[in-house]
């Protein structure tokens, strides 16, 4: 599914043993979508020699840590949050 700026999203806390670009400190956290950054090849498959297609949507998501931290998170790591 795709997300809109302003939407609240939760980062999956699932375990992923291979290469992936979702940092541990953000897994399970809820944030707010700032914008969609476009679509990019999937690093999780490209890291193992695959083409990385189909491209995945990437979202800049803002989290509150006492101070805001924004990170670029792939769509398949995000789900809607309340």
């Amino acid at each position, binding site marked *: 599914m795709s997300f809109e700026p302003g939407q609240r999203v939760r980062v999956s806390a699932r375990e992923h043993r291979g*290469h992936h670009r979702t*940092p*541990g*400190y953000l897994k399970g956290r809820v944030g707010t979508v700032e914008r969609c950054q476009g679509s990019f090849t999937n*690093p999780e498959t490209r890291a*193992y020699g695959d083409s990385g297609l189909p491209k995945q949507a990437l979202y800049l998501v803002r989290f509150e840590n006492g101070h805001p931290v924004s990170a670029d998170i792939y769509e398949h790591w995000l789900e809607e949050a309340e």
Partner: protein
Amino acid sequence: MEGGVHDTGGRPTTEPIDRTEHELAEWELLTDALVGALSRTGVMNVDELRRGIESMPPDEYRSASYYERWLYSAETILTEKGVLEPGELEARL
């Protein structure tokens, strides 16, 4: 907050940030350019480079310099792909 050794965000540390800078040595520029060339020719992409770096044993990762990690990754990935034979690089040293 477990995760690979490379997954450093938010890890508690009391280590101060060492602001000493160094100009890149010739071998570091070379390593950078080798990885770039491998990417251009489609032999090893940046995601594979990162995966290779992340596969370093944690102690080695922590004590290695930035380009030592790149080199480790290139050797690992190229050997995995059969571009390098095991031991072939050592024989050259």
